[in-house]
């Protein structure tokens, strides 16, 4: 079965440079096209279902992919595999020092910076103007640096020493929840994805994210940054496909402890909330209208939403 993703309205207005045409007499070089795969457990995989959907583009960019791309259309079993990968990565990631998580997130920012042109090209192919694309990529890299800097600091802001009335020393510390499902914002595809995934893993959770349906390719280009960033396999898993198919499976999966869904489809949001109740999932759904460029698009609250609080009592005495 084939489905089409609608190309964004403003594509037509923005055209990249002319395609590379070999001068007369020279041998035309045929480019090698990249196959796009989902990112699960640190590996690049096709959908186990064998299904695909097509992404088309109108914006022509020198040396870029063909105009029609086949993207894996993730299935219920892909969700199962991705959650398993995330679950297996959970204790290792949570068990690392906060400093180490910070280092890895910073390394990711470095990888994004080194692939900024590729990320920007992908955004342009999905309809952004070159100026918009570059602005989005820069904001995404800076957001990654922002959360790199938060990995060893949010504790100091959300933990407490509890002055309990008695001879006990009390403190409350944040702990990751476990596997968190993310349905990424549709646009901006890259900034929305990093702004939702990074706070989740910054807090020590692992994550299964469904990429923007409007621009799944940019998400997969981004996972190539993740793959080269020292991030342990399984911490970040990215699926492509249809929210209507994938999101309910995430919401019903009992190993998924929380879900963060950015969806314009109100009915789907409501049904995810319903589904999540089965394992008392921390289900957060949002209309997909946030301004991810604004200061409100980042902050400790994004991390705190996916943390448990653990209160410890200890006697003070001889």
């Amino acid at each position, binding site marked *: 079965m084939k489905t089409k993703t609608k190309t964004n309205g403003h594509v037509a207005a923005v055209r990249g440079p002319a395609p590379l045409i070999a001068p007369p007499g020279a041998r035309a070089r045929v480019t090698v096209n990249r196959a796009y795969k989902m990112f699960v457990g640190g590996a690049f995989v096709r959908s186990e279902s064998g299904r695909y959907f097509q992404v088309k583009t109108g914006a022509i960019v020198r040396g870029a992919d063909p105009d029609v791309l086949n993207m894996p259309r993730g299935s219920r079993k892909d969700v199962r595999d991705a959650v398993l990968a995330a679950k297996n990565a959970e204790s290792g990631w949570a068990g690392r020092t*906060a*400093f180490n998580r*910070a*280092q890895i997130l*910073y390394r990711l920012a470095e990888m994004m910076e080194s692939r900024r042109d590729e990320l920007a090209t992908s955004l342009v192919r999905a309809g952004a103007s070159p100026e918009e694309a570059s602005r989005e990529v820069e904001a995404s890299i*800076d957001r990654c*640096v*922002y959360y*790199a*800097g*938060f*990995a*060893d*600091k949010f*504790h*100091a*802001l959300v933990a407490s020493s509890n002055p309990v009335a008695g001879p006990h*020393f009390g403190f409350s510390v944040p702990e990751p929840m476990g596997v968190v499902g993310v349905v990424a914002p549709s646009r901006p595809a890259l900034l929305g994805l990093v702004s939702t995934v990074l706070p989740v893993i910054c807090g020590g959770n692992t994550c299964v994210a469904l990429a923007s349906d409007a621009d799944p390719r940019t998400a997969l280009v981004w996972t190539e940054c993740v793959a080269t960033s020292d991030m342990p396999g399984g911490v970040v898993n990215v699926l492509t496909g249809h929210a209507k198919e994938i999101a309910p499976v995430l919401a019903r999966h009992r190993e998924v402890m929380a879900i963060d869904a950015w969806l314009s489809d109100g009915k789907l949001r409501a049904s995810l909330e319903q589904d999540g109740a089965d394992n008392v999932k921390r289900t957060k759904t949002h209309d997909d209208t946030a301004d991810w460029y604004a200061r409100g698009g980042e902050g*400790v609250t994004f991390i705190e939403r996916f943390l448990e609080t653990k209160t410890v009592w*200890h*006697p*003070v*005495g*001889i």
Partner: protein
Amino acid sequence: MKKLAKRNGNGHNELDFGKAWDYAPAPEATDHVKIAPRYELFIGGKWQKPLSKKYFDTISPSTEQKLAEVAEADAADVDAAVAAARRGYEKYWSKLPGAERAKYIFRIARAIQEKARELAVVESMDGGKPIKESRDVDVPLAAAHFFYHAGWADKLDYAFHGRRARPLGVAAQIIPWNFPLLMAAWKIAPALACGNTVVLKPAETTPLTALLLAHIVQEAELPPGVVNIVTGAGATGAALAGHADVNKIAFTGSTEIGKRIQRAIAGTNKKITLELGGKAANIIFADAPIDQAVEGIIKGIYFNQGHVCCAGSRLLVEESVHDVVVRKLRDRMATLRLGDPLDKNTDVGAINSKMQLQKIKELVKAGEDEGGDRFSAPCAIPQKGYWFAPTFFTGVAQSSRIAREEVFGPVLSILTFRTPDEAIEKANNTMYGLSAGIWTDKGAKIFWLAQKLKAGVIWGNTYNKFDPSAPFGGYKESGFGREGGRQGLSAYVELE
């Protein structure tokens, strides 16, 4: 059943830590390290010859060989550095958003990681500390401090409960010789993160790694004047602390000099933080994991030749385990390897300077004169250089000089106590209050003592742990202000 014999340790059941199998020399390679014959002052992003026209030698305390000559900044040089810092502040640094400042500081952290081995080797050559410490402690922690504080630069709004933080301006920073690069990191990183520019003066016996750091700052393309490094001795430091155009003084060093600076700036609007001396109690209870506690004693007092302000220099042992602790400590000290700081197997390096060695010798003599029972590890002392074998005294009283004064060397005083109350009383019976250690298997007791100890850092079943996320600083005459953590930022901001 065979060979039971010789029960009870009346001197017969001694262990022999000899040379049945010994380690061959394992010197760290130095061929990749470049030390220039001469270093100028780093002012306004450039290397500038000192207006004083004077230079002084920095030597290796393990060989007494000259490593390089270094500019000696006088008042005019300090004035130029402060002016450059002011320009750097006005023109560039105060105008940069936090997120952009952050990326510069991250660059410094990365470069320290990239040059880690070179920095470690130079640190050990210039300061005498074992390469395993400079390699595994000083340099990685220095990088971590820059890394950590970089992350605060765009999050200051969170750090002060919603109040807006403004930088102070130019910070004058004076650091000691015991952790030269690490102290530079502790000072520079939070200052820059909070939006200040700095003039840093490293100690005169250990200027080299701060100067290598200046190269890193240059290569990281920080705007000119944001970080300035001036070298020199006490007079340079006094000129810097007393300069009219600095807004903040951060000093780590002796309590004596700290008091002098505090007096000198009285009546000005300068903000100040002081991280001064210590005479920490390391308290061992009978229910402690004794073998691990002995490791903690070693780490507490012989780490970095005891040149550590938070060193566990007073061991308070519950009387019932005194003898077993002392016996185990002697065994453990027999395995300490003193010598070439660049040998990867060296545990105890050189004393930082001739002057410091004199001071240690004087206090040890006082300990002997006062009737303390001295034990020194059976180490061979090299011919050249400044060395002091790890030493402890038993039979020490609270009133002994070696129990009261900071030796700042590998010398431990062992005292006993009978009850937890007595342990607290003795531990707090000092003008200092920087740190303390507690060893017991009972968690409640750790928290009980932690509550009662008048010290800024308490280690439970561990010692000498440092982390950029953990505030460090003292009570009482060990100074005020904290370095590290959210709390450490307040030293470098003004709240609106």
